């Protein structure tokens, strides 16, 4: 699909939504907008695509209440803004939208915080079935990077650039653009993709030359991965048929990072098919590793325990593997960071831990 038609479709969808409100008014109906409920109790596994998507439960934003009416008013203003932005072929960040609302003549339509404007864009994505990239809305740069034997062509606003993600970049690596669909994969020599949670570990792997030694593409997730990061991982897996592995800390928050890469996040479950890589595998740190390698640990905080228990009830983690690991962790009451491996020496992670784990996972 060409860029033009994508944009045309986006505008059409937005106007359709406005017209729906119009017809509701004209028909003496209370305007309303129905959305899937975005909670963990309303996501379900889609067998066809192998990802988690929203279930049947919906919530309604209705003008029946003052709150609902304000939401819908903001929605209409946002629709107008997006429509205009697309017509002028410009783009803006989510944060810019929040500030921009301040300039709207109607004070009732101003967003009260950025969460609200972010949520509005997500709402519109869902009801119009258009991604925010096609609305020309982008997040702040997340700064996530790639490093490894991959050659790409990026369509930038300043023309095409061909980049080799090992040879043409500094130690920082290649920064993933906001819309990774502007990237074309040219050539690669990759055996597998290794996603790393923390910057410290990523730097350790690069310093030890792990990407060169094992022909792997190191993706720096920078914590909870941005959509662009998840999208490019998905594309690397789908288009280049590469195995994807995820290497995080050994705590409940890191399991959620893996979850959003592999299963999709609750907030963007409508895009799971486009963002999630169900085949991604978790390397560690596993609670089992804490035991096996006798890693230095911190005790679990109350919030950690709550998070673990909440994960046990999350349908995405209801697999034998995760239940076993989480229960083990609750049992030992400990967590460990990736860097804890340094207790065995700086090279331990690249020479012992990763090769052992990857071998066990049949990746190498």
């Amino acid at each position: 699909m060409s860029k033009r038609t994508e944009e045309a479709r986006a505008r059409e969808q937005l106007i359709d939504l406005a017209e729906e409100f119009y017809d509701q008014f004209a028909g003496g109906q209370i305007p309303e907008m129905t959305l899937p409920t975005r909670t963990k109790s309303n996501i379900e596994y889609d067998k066809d695509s192998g990802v988690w998507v929203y279930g049947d439960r919906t919530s309604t934003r209705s003008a029946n209440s003052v709150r609902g009416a304000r939401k819908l008013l903001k929605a209409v203003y946002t629709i107008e803004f997006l429509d205009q932005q697309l017509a002028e072929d410009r783009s803006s960040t989510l944060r810019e939208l929040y500030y921009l609302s301040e300039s709207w003549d109607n004070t009732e339509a101003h967003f009260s915080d950025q969460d609200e404007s972010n949520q509005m864009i997500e709402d519109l994505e869902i009801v119009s079935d258009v991604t925010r990239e096609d609305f020309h809305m982008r997040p702040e740069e997340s700064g996530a990077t790639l490093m490894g034997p991959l050659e790409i062509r990026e369509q930038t606003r300043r023309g095409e650039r061909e980049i080799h993600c090992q040879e043409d970049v500094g130690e920082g690596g290649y920064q993933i653009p906001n819309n990774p669909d502007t990237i074309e994969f040219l050539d690669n020599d990759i055996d597998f993709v290794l996603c790393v949670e923390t910057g410290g570990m990523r730097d350790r792997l690069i310093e030890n030359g792990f990407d060169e030694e094992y022909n792997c593409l190191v993706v720096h997730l920078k914590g909870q991965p941005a959509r662009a990061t998840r999208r490019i991982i998905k594309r690397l897996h789908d288009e280049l048929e590469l195995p994807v592995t995820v290497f995080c800390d050994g705590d409940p928050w890191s399991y959620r990072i893996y979850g959003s890469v592999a299963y999709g996040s609750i907030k963007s479950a409508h895009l799971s098919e486009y963002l999630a890589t169900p085949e991604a595998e978790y390397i560690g740190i596993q609670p089992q590793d804490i035991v096996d390698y006798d890693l230095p640990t911190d005790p679990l905080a109350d919030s950690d325990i709550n998070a673990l228990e909440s994960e046990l009830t999350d349908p995405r983690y209801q697999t034998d593997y995760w239940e076993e690991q989480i229960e083990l962790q609750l049992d030992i009451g400990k967590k460990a960071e990736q860097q804890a491996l340094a207790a065995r020496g700086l090279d331990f992670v690249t020479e012992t831990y990763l090769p052992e784990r990857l071998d066990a996972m049949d990746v190498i």
Partner: protein
Amino acid sequence: MTSFQAELGADEGIAEELAKGQREISIAEFFEKNKHMLGFDSGARGLVTAVKEAVDNALDATEEAGFRPDIYVEIAEAGDYYKLVIEDNGPGITKEQLPKVFGKLLYGSRFHAREQSRGQQGIGISAAVLYSQLTSGKPAKITSRTQEADRAEYFELIIDTDTNEPEIRKSETTTWDRTHGTRIELEMEANMRARQQLHDYIKHTAVVNPHARIELREPGLDEPLKFERGTDQLPAETSEIRPHPHGVELGTLLKMLAATESYSISGFLQEEFTRVGKKTATKVLDAFRDRHYGRELSWPTPSLNVDIDAAITEAVSNKGAEATESFAGEIESVLTSRERTAHFELREIVDNVAESVAEEFGRTFGSTVRENAVAAVWAELTAFEPDAEDGRDHLTPAIYTLVDDATSTRKDDATIQALAERIARRLANSDGTQFRLTHDELSRLVAEAADATVEYDDVTVGETARENIIEALWDISRTVPDDAPKVRAIADSRDTASELLEAMRETNILAPPTDCLSPITSELVEAGLRKEYDADFYAAATRDADVHGGDPFIVEAGIAYGGELQSEGKVDLLRFANRVPLVYQQGACAITDVVKGIGWRNYRLDQPGGSGIPNGPAVIMIHVASTNVPFTSESKDALANIPAIEDEIELAIREAARELKSYLNKQRSLQKRQEKQDVLSRILPEMADKVAEVTGRSRPNIEGAMGKIMNNLCIDREIKNGTVTLTVENYSDRSESPEITEIVSVEPQDLNGAGSVVDLDGEWYVQWSPSVSAGEEAELTYTVGDDADFDITVEGIEAEKLTLNA
């Protein structure tokens, strides 16, 4: 005095010395010392009290005569003094009575009457006369005209402070423009510092007397203050009631006993008291006899070691074998068939049997014989010779059964046996053989027996056990048939009278009748508030009558809220007793205490700290009507804290306050709805505009959506080719019946039947009251020519719930 005391006995002349200093206290001195009690403690207050007394009298007089009160109050400056004039349209006072009514303290028709009235002691107006006379030296000037009289009587009088008798200075007939009524003019030392209280008093009087017209002129007013009638209905007439047996005190009872013409107590009770008929009198009399004479213990007929037949046969001589045998046998058979027998019952039995045997055998059994027989049988029944060898004891087993039943099962047999034996011994040793004891004597006897048992047998006999034993014994004791003492005898004996009073109080007697009370009624309480306070909401409650100390009373409460009432500060509390406003001493009044104790936040009024007088734009009024309102003092400013009355006050207030609460809740929800409507009616049009802009279409009509959101009733007008269609759509969840009136400038034709048209001078009133169920709609159509003007009004639905688009 102590110095005299020290010398007492030393000098015989002391008593005489003291006697010289003792003399009758003149009424003026009494007044001077006690004027604070009567409400005349300052010039400011004296004026208010004088107005109050005069107006109360005027209202009582006019109402009693069945006139609608028309009262005129004037205060004017008169040199160094203030002149007070009060006029009423009452029946007037006869020439003979007039001087006494105004010129004698403690003269009145009310004091002895059990009937609701404003004045009671007969102090009020004469105290005002006395006050004016003492401060200004001027006589009271009184004009009065009775209905039949052609001319009015005019008096100038003062009170002789030594004798408490009126002294007439001037007496003449005069003309007066009122056809009947009384006018009193007083001059007194006073000031107007209590102007607010004066105004409050007059205004509050107008509130509780909506049937009265009152006018006030005073120097501070440019215009006279006029309070017009709110109703023509006079308060229900009250009837006097006799005292209730529960409400008299010993002194009163003695006085009544001395004064009555009744000979017997039963007659006295029925004659002099309310709610006492023959049956109640008998109950009181029984209770009185129990106290005066005591009851007689009754005893079972023993089955062993008893030979009634033989005892009687022995006691009777010379009556012939057959008759004697029949006499003895009959008595024995009667006794064995009875469960228990008291001494006086035995005598009755013997008398009866003697009569019947005498009839049968023609032998007379005289009183000596009968007495012998009674003594012989009684000795058998109640034989008690525990110290003799093989001696009989019929008392202990009889008491043992009672004690055993009355005490807990944990007591062992020996204890009960010992206790029963001690009681039996004490009974046997008591005076006489009849076992006649009052409740007090019985209690004392049981207590002694129990104490002895505790002491010698080292066991416990608790309070409950003792009480149970006493009650068990009292239960089997019989009220004796002795004639009650006559009225004269009781009147002479304070102790006996006190026994009678106790008996009266003990006996359950119906509450006194309430036709002696005249409540304002909740309708008129509300009307009175409506008349004097411009508020948004009114509620009133009248409780049923209750009794305190033999005096019936009724409490009423009213609440006004919102409107023009001042919203800052505390609510206004209006207190009334027998329709008289209580102006002073709010803090000392039981009514205030009750109001403070109520949690007003429950009723949606602001109450800092959760207690005390609440804040807000409200007036709370309480009226207590009684034949004897318990005031804290003679100045009648504050109600005493009587729990029974306080309870009723609280219930009355709460009843009215509940209505206030639901009103305020509704207001609040309507306000919320209004706020929601305000916000939505701003947001939704903007949304509609924006939607129209984005879609490039014209602005959609959003009334339907608005109506639905607000669950409103929507009324729309559509005009097509001269046909007008009014559509009523009900989006609420209940059925609505709006009353729609349209004024049309052209005559409407072809009305579709649901409405009606009235022609009024070239304007046509279309009236239509459809009943529309929830979710339904109704239509009215008619045709008009071109250029018709419409003016629609809708009633019968809150403005907040109506979306009018016509």
